[in-house]
């Protein structure tokens, strides 16, 4: 397995899309879930979502889920093991950012 950090940092939208896919979802399901997870702060546009899904598929961070076949019009996606590793890597990176910024801001 190559170093997962080469995909970091993800854009905020891509981060949340990947996070949403810890359960299998189709495009619209992802949009709704990202809105909910981010308290409506991030609302993926369909153009951005489509592009992000294509990139995540190319990088094998998500795969089409098998359940998708029964419904031909909508593809269903789910996260891969590599995708999960990337999420954990990103969480640690963001945590570090929070920790550092808090300690710097406290000094002022």
């Amino acid at each position: 397995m190559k170093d997962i950090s080469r995909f970091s940092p993800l854009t905020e939208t891509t981060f949340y899309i990947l996070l949403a896919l810890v359960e299998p979802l189709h495009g619209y399901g992802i949009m709704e879930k990202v809105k909910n997870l981010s308290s409506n702060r991030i609302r993926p546009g369909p153009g951005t979502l489509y592009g992000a899904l294509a990139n995540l598929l190319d990088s094998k961070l998500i795969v089409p889920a098998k359940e998708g076949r029964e419904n031909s019009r909508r593809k269903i996606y789910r996260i891969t093991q590599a995708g999960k590793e990337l999420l954990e890597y990103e969480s640690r990176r963001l945590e570090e950012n929070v920790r550092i910024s808090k300690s710097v801001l406290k000094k002022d």
Partner: protein
Amino acid sequence: MDIRDNRTTKRIFKLFFAWGEEKEEKWLEERSLKGWHLYRVGFLNYKFVKGLPKRFIYKFDFRLFSRKSEDEYLAIFKDAGWELIDIFASWYYFRIDPEVHGESEFDIYNDNLSRIKKYQRILLFILIVNGPALYFLIPYLIEKTFAAQSTPYTVLYAIILVLIALIESFLIYAVIRFIILIRRLRNNIRQ
């Protein structure tokens, strides 16, 4: 949609420059407020159908696709409330009804990185289609113009050369406009 049946339609000829698409999208929105709704896009022209004045928001996307990916792409747009109006020369024309979808702002892209990628696709397309013209056709025509033995042929080659040079100059201008757009988006600190 069968809005075309027995309804007044009108065609408007208009130059559309893709680097000024926001203005174009606004213009279409204003047309729909007057009851003229876009339903067909052609070369330098739009077709409108007369209906009730109603606000629609228009957005254009640029994509080069295989059929299979296009289905998924269109399904995602449809689910998000965007109605496909027409496809013309790899441009996808969408509209949304802002009353049905109660958002404060409507866009098919929500971050600058994906907006930049769209303009990069357009740039790549221009270069692939016109690269050969710039590198082979123009030098070939210059050579032909000077090598031609009889005056009519010299004139003919010269005319073709000037026409192609004009088209290419326009495309170089377009490339510069897109590079400026990409730079502006890139310099925006917000991702």
